[in-house]
């Protein structure tokens, strides 16, 4: 994979630094809402990608370049603050409403607090083939590395939550069968829909809202300090998957998509009904019992998952209702 296209002067400078032999710190000056700032989100996504698959045009050693890490830290400070502000009301209400020893109930309260953008219902009943394909493109950024961010928590947990996370991840990573690796199942779904299944193929097309969904997972994944948020994110993700996946299956069947598309979402109806219980009860509840100080971060992670998902979903549904697309063709032409 090559570096994505820059989306403004800041990301252009960051990418120039990344390909240089000795990357320099590029100062990030927060001037816009970081959650919807295309320039900031694409830069952060690329900096994080150094810790996943990397880029053919960037030296692998630059993952630990002090200059790039300093730039990343500035972006992360603004991003984390925005995420805490976004979720603080819901987290506060969940902490007030429920007994402190009922983490699953609090996660459920944070989830219920988010508005449903109606994405799953739209895909089930109204979406055109093209809109359904667009949905797959947005989702490809995460699903082609499905569960990779959450795997960073394994060495940072101990005892019951570690065992439970490993059990969940074993299923995500194919249960010992290469052809059942969930990211591979999604690549097949992309192929079935006539889309490029290559890792990173669609990065230039997706908007900041979709990048933010992914960047939040990496922020939580790459800082041990935020492991509570990472596990709360996982719990909310799994808890809001089974029922929408049923609708995604319905939409794919209605539109006559290839069986590989329905197979991916079909697998997740049952898998995520299991994972939801494991993540909420066996991981998050046990983690908070071990480390009560992580309780608020668990709920932060859950809130970030559902709130950012709702924003990205609303962007799609609003664009589709207006006969438009939430993908970035215009921007691509502008920056090309």
């Amino acid at each position, binding site marked *: 994979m090559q570096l994505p296209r820059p989306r403004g002067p800041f990301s252009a400078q960051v990418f120039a630094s990344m390909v240089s032999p000795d990357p320099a710190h590029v100062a990030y000056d927060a001037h816009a809402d970081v959650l919807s700032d295309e320039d900031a989100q694409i830069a952060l996504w690329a900096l994080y990608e150094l810790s996943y698959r990397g880029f053919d045009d960037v030296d692998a050693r630059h993952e630990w370049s002090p200059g790039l890490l300093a730039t990343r830290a500035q972006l992360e400070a603004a991003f984390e603050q925005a995420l805490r502000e976004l979720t603080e009301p819901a987290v506060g209400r969940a902490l007030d409403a429920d007994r402190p020893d009922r983490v699953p109930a609090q996660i459920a309260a944070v989830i219920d607090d988010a508005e449903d953008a109606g994405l799953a219902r739209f895909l089930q009943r109204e979406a055109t083939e093209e809109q359904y394909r667009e949905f797959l493109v947005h989702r490809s950024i995460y699903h082609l590395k499905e569960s990779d961010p959450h795997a960073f928590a394994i060495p940072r947990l101990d005892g019951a939550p570690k065992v439970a996370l490993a059990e969940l991840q074993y299923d995500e990573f194919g249960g010992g069968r290469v052809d059942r690796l969930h990211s591979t199942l999604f690549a097949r779904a992309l192929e079935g829909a006539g889309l490029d299944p290559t890792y990173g193929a669609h990065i230039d097309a997706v908007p900041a809202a979709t990048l933010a969904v992914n960047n939040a997972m990496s922020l939580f994944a790459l800082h041990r300090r935020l492991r509570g948020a990472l596990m709360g994110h996982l719990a909310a993700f799994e808890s809001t998957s089974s*029922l929408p996946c*049923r609708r995604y299956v319905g939409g794919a069947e209605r539109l006559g998509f290839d069986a590989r598309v329905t197979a991916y979402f079909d697998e997740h109806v049952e898998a995520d*009904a299991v994972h939801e219980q494991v993540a909420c009860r066996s991981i998050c509840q046990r983690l908070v019992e071990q480390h009560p100080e992580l309780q608020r971060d668990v709920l932060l992670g859950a809130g970030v998952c559902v709130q950012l998902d709702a924003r990205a979903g609303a962007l799609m549904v609003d664009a589709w209702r207006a006969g438009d697309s939430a993908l970035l063709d215009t921007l691509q032409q502008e920056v090309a």
Partner: protein
Amino acid sequence: MSCQVEICPDGPALVRGADEVIDAAGRAHATTRPVVAVCLCGRSQRAPWCDGTHKVVTAAAPRPSVVEARDS
């Protein structure tokens, strides 16, 4: 491996180490993952497996299904 059943309040039963689960009609369903969630609300469209439906029918009275897990 021994079989373990964990009841989730207002949710399914997590079953580990079972080869198959017998549904209410006596049909055997092979498990395909290390831990499976067996429907306890009786309203899953994928019985005997949980499909999350319990979350949208919590107002209705729970209707336990007959579950028997065969040890492997």
